[in-house]
């Protein structure tokens, strides 16, 4: 298990024309071990960049990232599951891909695969290729591929944004269950306020770009949360609060 904290993160991209684009601005954030943090903010504010910096694929221009364990195993779920899966491998082989490249024996792979596919929210034909899977099935395969390496931190970039409503709900409930059972630290970028509140131990509200943390809102609703909680009074109160902050922030940035 690993938590993380980032301190004063800034990211500046330079265009080929030499123009500087500031994406993250002095962003500080801490995520405790096993905590489920959802990141919510305006479109294009730099949420995905933040995940890429945490993953180490994008270098921060300044600031530091510290994990509580050394060199933790990270999982990453891409928004675009179609291009993240290997279309030449079956669903099963996609899930087992990281184990297979790590040289783990077929017997062990089969055992871990068997363990990870119990209690899934939707049915999957494991011999099917990704192009025969629905969006929900493909994204589930993609998540399982990251879970099978038993990550300490799982970074998710709007993973359910392309799914239909019902599948989306099933996936939310399942992901909460995974987080509770495995105590994986989760950083989940979302542009759906309901999703962010339902999943999060805290919702981190980012400002319009260049992004920094506007506010952290703790969601102290008891777990496991049922899907019907989204219709409850306590849920609505929190949603109204976050929405008001969000609108105020977006309005201020528009009027500048």
């Amino acid at each position, binding site marked *: 298990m690993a938590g993380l904290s980032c301190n004063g993160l800034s990211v500046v991209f330079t265009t080929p024309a030499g123009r500087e684009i500031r994406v993250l601005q002095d962003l500080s954030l801490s995520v405790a071990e096993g905590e489920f943090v959802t990141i919510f903010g305006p479109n294009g504010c730099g949420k995905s960049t933040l995940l890429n910096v945490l*993953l180490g*694929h994008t270098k921060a221009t300044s600031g530091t990232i510290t994990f509580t364990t050394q060199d933790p195993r*990270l*999982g*990453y779920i*891409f928004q*675009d599951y179609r*291009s*993240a899966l*290997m*279309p*030449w491998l079956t669903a099963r082989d996609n899930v087992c*891909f*990281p184990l297979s*490249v*790590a040289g783990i024996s077929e017997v062990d792979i089969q055992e871990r695969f068997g363990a990870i596919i119990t209690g899934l929210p939707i049915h999957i034909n494991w011999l099917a*290729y*990704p*192009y025969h899977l629905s969006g929900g099935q493909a994204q589930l395969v993609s998540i399982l591929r*990251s879970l099978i*390496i038993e990550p300490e931190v799982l970074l998710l970039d709007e993973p359910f944004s392309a799914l239909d409503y019902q599948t989306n709900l099933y996936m939310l409930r399942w992901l909460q269950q995974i987080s509770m059972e495995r105590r994986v630290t989760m950083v989940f970028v979302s542009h759906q306020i309901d999703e962010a509140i339902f999943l999060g131990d805290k919702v981190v509200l980012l400002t319009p770009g260049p992004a920094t943390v506007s506010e952290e809102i703790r969601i102290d609703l008891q777990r496991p949360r049922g899907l019907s909680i989204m219709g409850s009074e306590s849920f609505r109160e929190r949603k109204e609060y976050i929405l008001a902050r969000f609108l105020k922030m977006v309005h201020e940035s528009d009027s500048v």
Partner: protein
Amino acid sequence: MTIRWYYLREFLLRAWLPVGLLVGWHLLGASQWVSPLLLPSLSDTLSAGVGLIASGAIFSDLQSSAYRFVVGYGIAVIVGVPLGMLIGIHPVLHKSFEFVLEFGRATPVTAFFPLFLLLFGIHDPSKIAMVTVASVFIIILNSAYGVYYASRTRQRVGDLFRLSRLQRFVRITFWDALPQIVVGLRTALSLALIVVVVSEMLIGTEHGLGQRIFDAYTVSNSPELYALLLIIGVIGYFLNSGFVSVEKRVIHWKGY
């Protein structure tokens, strides 16, 4: 009933034109409106074709042409695919080679024919070299493009699961590039067949389909000339459709 009707319709849609052309050919021959030197009758052509096969006369030509084709195309594949992939991996190599490759591809190989005579003499090596040169540029270019335009997301997946450079190439890049590589192989296949026949006509040989066509033309043996064209057409058709059916099975994910 509907399914049977569907297949019948599909068959008729594909068959009416070839059958119609043969019937038209037969009627035109029977009407004697066209000189048999320009268009021999269908029955004369077919009996010339049967004669070529029954007497075994054509087999030494087929064998010689097939030898040049297989060796010339084989060298192009063995050299072109690895070289193309290497060029595709490095953006610097890609940019350095781009002009030369496009130049080589765009220049008709037949224009080089006197040069090949000087370099390789009048026997098999010059014909094989023509086939190789005609095929190799297309194979290199497509292999390079396949690697160069491999999915960036899947490359990141490779980073995520900490694949070594070699692993990333063998487990991801190669497969990503394969559909485009095969496009090159298929295009080069048709071209290689053309160039074998042309080189035999231009350079001359004892045995070879191109030479036999030229001989038939020289002695004004129109039925044999037409029969040879039909035979070469049938070979080309089956070569290509055989390739496509293997391609569909191997690269099952193409087009998704």
